[in-house]
C-alpha cells in the first residue's frame, strides 16, 4: 500500500459542512447586524458558500496518504503543500469513529494520536473504508510489535481476543442516571437562554405570564422542577447513546474499547502506554459501592482529552475491580488497603476547609440577617466535606507501585508505577512542619499534560518513605532496609 491514496469523496462534503458550521456564528452576526441591502447580503452569502465548497473539494483532492518505509506519510494543503511523516513507533493510538455521514458508506474516521502532539490530533483521515482502516491498524500493530519484541521470535498465531468487560443494560442505566452530565446540560440550557436574550423578546412573552407568576411561588418551583427533570432526562439519553455497547477487549497487548450507538467509536491503546490508573467514585456512586476506572495514557492531544484519560470501566462495583482487571493488567495491584493519615491531620483539613468559608459566612450573618444565617448550612457542609477528605486520604507503597487516594469532591484513587511517575514532590508549610506533617504529590503523564495525585498532611516520616522510594540515588540501599 505504498501508492498515495485519497480519502473517500464524502470527506469533501464533511470538510464543507465543518467549515460552514464554523462560519455559522459570524454568518448569523452578518445577517442580523449587516446592512439592510438584501441583494448585497445574498451575493456575499452565496459567494462564501461557493468558496467553501470549492475549498472543501480542493482540500480533498490535495489530501493523500500512504504507508511507506515504516511511516504514515500524509501530504496535504491547498496553497501551501505540507508533508507530514509519522513513524509508526511514534503513533500512540488510532481513534476510530463513525459519524452520521460516514455510516451510510461504511466508512470510518481515523484519528492518529502521537505523544505530545499539542493542540490537535497529529493526523486525521476523515473518511476511509473500514477495511482500509483495519489494514492500517494491522500494519501498525505488526510494525510496533516487531520493533517492540525485536529479539523475540515473531509468532504467527492469530491474535487472541478476550473480552475484559461489557456493559450490561442495568449498568448503562445506572451510569447514565448518576453521571454529572446533568449539570452540563443545565448550564448549556442557561447559556443558551442568556445567549439569545437580546433576540428573543422574553419580556413580551413573559408579560402574559406575569399573572400566573404572581399567582404563586409553587407554580415556579414546579416549573423549575420540571425543567431540571427534562435536563436530567436529556443528559440520561445522551449518556445512554454515548456509552451503549461499551466493550473492552484485549487483543494481544492492546486494549480495544468500542462504544456508542449512533456514533460508534473505537479506541486502541497498547498496554505499555498506560501511565496510571485512576478510580473515581462520585458522590452518588460511592455510597452505592460503585466506581469508574480510568486509564491515563500517553497519547492524545489537548482538544481530545478523552483519549488521554480513557474510561476503562464506566461503572463497576468497586470491590470487583481487582477481579476484572488483574488478569489483563497484571502489573497493577488494586489492593484497597490504604494507609490512613494520622489523627492530628484532621485539624489541618478542617482548617483548610473553613479558612475561606468561615469569614464569608460570618460576614453574611452580620450584614444579611436573617437570611445570612443560612450560611451556617454551608459551614456544616464544609465541615462534613473536610472530614470526608481527611478520612478518605491515604497512600500505599508496594514494591513498584504508588497508590494515592484523595478526595476533591469525588474520591480518587490513583495507581502509578514507579517507572511511569515523572516527578515526586514533598511540600511542607510552616504549620505542617510544626505538626510533623507533609504533603506528597506524584505526577504521571497523561496526554500532553500531567496527572497524578496530591495527598495533604501525611505523617512526615511517611512522606519521606515515598520520597525515598522514588529516589533513584538511594533507592537500592533503601529497598534493602525495608
Amino acid at each position, binding site marked *: 500500500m505504498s501508492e498515495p491514496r485519497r480519502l473517500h469523496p464524502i470527506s469533501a462534503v464533511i470538510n464543507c459542512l465543518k467549515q460552514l458550521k464554523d462560519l455559522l456564528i459570524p454568518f448569523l452576526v452578518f445577517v442580523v447586524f449587516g446592512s439592510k441591502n438584501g441583494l448585497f447580503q445574498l451575493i456575499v452569502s452565496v459567494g462564501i458558500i461557493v468558496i467553501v465548497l470549492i475549498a472543501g473539494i480542493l482540500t480533498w483532492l490535495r489530501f493523500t496518504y500512504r504507508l511507506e518505509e515504516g511511516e504514515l506519510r500524509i501530504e496535504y494543503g491547498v496553497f501551501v503543500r505540507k508533508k507530514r511523516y509519522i513513524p509508526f513507533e511514534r503513533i500512540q493510538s488510532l481513534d476510530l469513529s463513525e459519524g452520521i455521514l460516514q455510516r451510510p458508506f461504511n466508512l470510518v474516521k481515523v484519528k492518529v494520536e502521537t*505523544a505530545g502532539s499539542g493542540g490537535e490530533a497529529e493526523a486525521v483521515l476523515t473518511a476511509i473504508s473500514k477495511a482500509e482502516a483495519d489494514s492500517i491498524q494491522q500494519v501498525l500493530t505488526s510494525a510496533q510489535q516487531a520493533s517492540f519484541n525485536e529479539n523475540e521470535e515473531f509468532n504467527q498465531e492469530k491474535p487472541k481476543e478476550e473480552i475484559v468487560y461489557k456493559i450490561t443494560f442495568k449498568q448503562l442505566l445506572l451510569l447514565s442516571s448518576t453521571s454529572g452530565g446533568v449539570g452540563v446540560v443545565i448550564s448549556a440550557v442557561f447559556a443558551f437562554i442568556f445567549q439569545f436574550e437580546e433576540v428573543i423578546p422574553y419580556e413580551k412573552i413573559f408579560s402574559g405570564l406575569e399573572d400566573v407568576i404572581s399567582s404563586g411561588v409553587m407554580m415556579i418551583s414546579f416549573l423549575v422542577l420540571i425543567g431540571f427533570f427534562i435536563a436530567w432526562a436529556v443528559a440520561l439519553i445522551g449518556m445512554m447513546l454515548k456509552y451503549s455497547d461499551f466493550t473492552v477487549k484485549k487483543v494481544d497487548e492492546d486494549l480495544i474499547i468500542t462504544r456508542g450507538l449512533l456514533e460508534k467509536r473505537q479506541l486502541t491503546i497498547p498496554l505499555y502506554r498506560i501511565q496510571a490508573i485512576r478510580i473515581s467514585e462520585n458522590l452518588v456512586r460511592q455510597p452505592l459501592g460503585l466506581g469508574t476506572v480510568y486509564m491515563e495514557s500517553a497519547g492524545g492531544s489537548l482538544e481530545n482529552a478523552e483519549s488521554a484519560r480513557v474510561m476503562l470501566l464506566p461503572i463497576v462495583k468497586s470491590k470487583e475491580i481487582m477481579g476484572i482487571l488483574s488478569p489483563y493488567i497484571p502489573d497493577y495491584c488494586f489492593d484497597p488497603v490504604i494507609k490512613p493519615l494520622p489523627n492530628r491531620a484532621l485539624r489541618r483539613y478542617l482548617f483548610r476547609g473553613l479558612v475561606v468559608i468561615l469569614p464569608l459566612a460570618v460576614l453574611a450573618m452580620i450584614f444579611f440577617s436573617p437570611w445570612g444565617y443560612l450560611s451556617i448550612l454551608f459551614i456544616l457542609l464544609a465541615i462534613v466535606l473536610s472530614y470526608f477528605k481527611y478520612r478518605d486520604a491515604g497512600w500505599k507503597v508496594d514494591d513498584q507501585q504508588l497508590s494515592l487516594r484523595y478526595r476533591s469532591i469525588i474520591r480518587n484513587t490513583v495507581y502509578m508505577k514507579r517507572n511511569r511517575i*515523572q*516527578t515526586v514532590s514533598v511540600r511542607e508549610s510552616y504549620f505542617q512542619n510544626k505538626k510533623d506533617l507533609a504533603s506528597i504529590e506524584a*505526577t504521571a503523564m497523561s496526554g500532553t*499534560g500531567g496527572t497524578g495525585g496530591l495527598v495533604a498532611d501525611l505523617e512526615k516520616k511517611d512522606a519521606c518513605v515515598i*520520597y525515598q522510594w*522514588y529516589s*533513584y*540515588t538511594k533507592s537500592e540501599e533503601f529497598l534493602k532496609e525495608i
Partner: protein
Amino acid sequence: MIMEPQKRISSKGLIVWRIYGAIHSFFVLLVAGGAIALTIIFDWPIWIIGVALLVFALCAYVFIVLIPTIRWKRWRYEVRENEIELQHGVFVMKRTLVPMIRVQHVDTQQGPILRKYQLATITVSTAATVHEIPALEVDEAEELRFFISKLARVADEDV
C-alpha cells in the same frame, strides 16, 4: 528529613530578585500615587494618603527585601547522576525529584536583567511537568545543561 540538596543558586540572583521586586512595587507605587492624586484633587479625607503610603511601603518591603531573601535562602538544588533534586518555597517548602530518564529536554533562558548580571535560568521539562532552576551563573548553567542533556539521553523507555 532526608539529606537536603546542597547547592545554592548564585548570590547575584538575590540582587536580580530584588530588581524584580522593585519592578513589582513600582506598579503598587502607581496605584498609590493615583490614589494620592485623586485624594488631593477631590478633597477626600487626608488619611487616605497615609494609608496609600503605608501600603506602598509595606509592599516594597515585602517584595524587595523579605520575599527575595527567604526565597534565596531556601533555594537549593542538586544534579546527580540519575536525578535532579530541587528544594524551594517561601511559605511552603517544596522538594521535587526529577529522575534523569524522565527528562525530555533542557533549556537555558536569559532575560535582559539576568544577562546584565551574567546569569541564566535552566528549565528542565519532563513529559508532564516543567521545572526551573533560576539565576545560575551563565557558565554553570551551560555546563549543567550539557550535563543534564547528556545524562538524559539514556532514556530508552516509552515516555
